[in-house]
């Protein structure tokens, strides 16, 4: 379990690019051993926050302390103890898998024998041992992402930063990456990740903040967020487009905490989905399809921002 040592402390952290405010005075604390997530849609300010934590983007204003050091003045010493897995692969595709790790290890000033030993272990960890001598270019997206993760671990970092670790991967490759990240978490590596996938946030994060338009909208564990901002169950109803608006009107007096009318469906936030469905039918509402499901972080996000995550 995470102890109470604070590894990252941010207060009033702000990043502006000209007139555009990417990160708008956010504050958070991150403890050793935690898996901490920034959940939000594209453009919410997640990557800008990550780059500030990675000490490659000086904050416009505010305070950012990482492992007790100032992110601007001591960026070099901080980076020596961070692992960074960027959103866009930055592997040297002209080199081999092994050479990529060798180069990266040298950036950290590691002796060759240490790099060789770690390379063997890390390639085993990300299941790329049999590709060690191959050029990177032809590797699949999932393999490249796993290699990037291995590369980010070569300095045995105290904090691993992952910016959208599975964006652009197919479902199977995503699960392999999740599995590796979950193992890292079990091994006590502190993970900081950004994602716009609610399932990723739910699977990997002990605690997360929901970001929208550069601000933190809410903070807590996935379960706490769902309990605070949503109902246990959600009834999803789909109608024929011509009946959509009419049905939504009829549903207005079905007892529910909240109703969301989306373009393609109506969501009812209720304690008991089956009972709500029966109540809807009793009012003569006949949906094309109906689904009773548990609330997710997607519902939390919808509630907090009025928008969906993946649009």
């Amino acid at each position, binding site marked *: 379990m995470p102890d109470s040592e604070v590894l990252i402390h941010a207060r009033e952290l702000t990043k502006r690019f000209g007139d555009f405010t990417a990160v708008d005075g956010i504050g958070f604390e991150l403890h050793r051993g935690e898996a901490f997530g920034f959940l939000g849609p594209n453009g919410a300010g997640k990557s800008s926050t990550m780059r500030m934590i990675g000490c490659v983007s000086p904050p416009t204003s505010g305070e950012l302390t990482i492992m007790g050091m100032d992110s601007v003045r001591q960026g070099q010493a901080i980076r020596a103890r961070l692992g960074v897995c960027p959103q866009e692969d930055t592997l*040297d595709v002209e080199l081999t898998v092994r050479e990529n790790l060798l180069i990266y290890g*040298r*950036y950290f000033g590691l002796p060759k024998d240490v790099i060789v030993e770690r390379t063997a*272990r890390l390639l085993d960890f990300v299941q790329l041992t049999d590709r060690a001598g191959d050029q990177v270019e032809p590797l699949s997206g999932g393999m490249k992402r796993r290699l990037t993760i291995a590369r980010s671990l070569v*300095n045995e970092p105290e904090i691993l930063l992952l910016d959208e670790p599975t964006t652009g991967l197919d479902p199977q490759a995503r699960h392999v990456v999740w599995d590796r990240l979950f193992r890292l978490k079990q091994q006590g*590596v502190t993970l900081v990740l950004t994602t716009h996938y609610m399932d990723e946030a739910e699977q990997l994060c002990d605690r997360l903040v929901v970001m929208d338009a550069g601000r933190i909208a809410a903070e807590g564990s996935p379960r706490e967020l769902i309990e605070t901002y949503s109902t246990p169950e959600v009834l999803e109803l789909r109608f024929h487009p011509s009946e959509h608006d009419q049905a939504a009107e009829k549903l207005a007096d079905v007892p529910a905490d909240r109703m969301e009318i989306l373009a393609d469906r109506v969501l009812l936030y209720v304690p008991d989905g089956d009972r709500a469905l029966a109540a809807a039918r009793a009012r003569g509402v006949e949906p094309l399809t109906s689904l009773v499901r548990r609330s997710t972080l997607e519902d939390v996000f919808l509630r907090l921002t009025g928008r969906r995550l993946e649009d």
Partner: protein
Amino acid sequence: MAATAVPAGRRGPARVGGTWAMAVRAFRFWLVNYRRTWRGSIYSSVANPILYLGAMGLGLGTLVDQHGTASLGHVSYLAFLAPGLLAAGALQTAMGEATYPVLASVKWLKTYQAAAATPLRPADLLHGHLLFTSMRLAMNSTIFLIVMSAFGAVQSAWVVLAIPVCVLTGMAFAAPIEAFAITRDKDSSFAVLYRFGLIPLFLFSGTFFPVTQLPAWIRPVAYATPLWHGVALCRGLSLGTTDAAAALGHVAYLAALALAGVLVAQRNYRRRLYV
């Protein structure tokens, strides 16, 4: 699978070194990359001087020599031309290293961004690449010198000093061009740089004929170009006609240009990589 990514027995955190040590880390990246392409690069480093010295030094040179070589300082055209081409070669090497490889690192491959996430700072990446460029300059000018002596185009043992002169001449170009290249998003401006920068310099900096053959009004332009200073230095060393005071002036001019380039490039690297 029982693989462990971060074992309990850690070897301690990575080390942060001084400016030189950090530059060497960045330099070694280029070295690893170069391991794949060095054979081809050596081939062209040898072929280039043979082709130029053969066609122009011997071929064209025979015609030139028949018309008298007073304006060349009473040496054969081959002996006059060879050190000029040596210096011009440094310009070409510098230009090749300071343009496309820099843009590739920051834009196409993003290997600079990968390195910037480590203890390396933007200036370390610049220094590492300039070290590598220096190595390439030293290699190419050494090869050129060997070919040049095989052609019998060397008249003084001082010519070995042309190797550091070529490194300096190359740096006077590489550093400012690198300062420009790191700000680019597309490579189209490089073609312009080649067409309106490299080629006129190559032709009018005293490489093929003495600058004194140019109309008087345009000569100051030639004297202001860094290549002319490199050509003058190499020629003086190869012909054994170096004047110490003039040589110091050339070196100072080239060093000032290289230094100014490094300072601007340091700033531009930082602006590009720390957004």
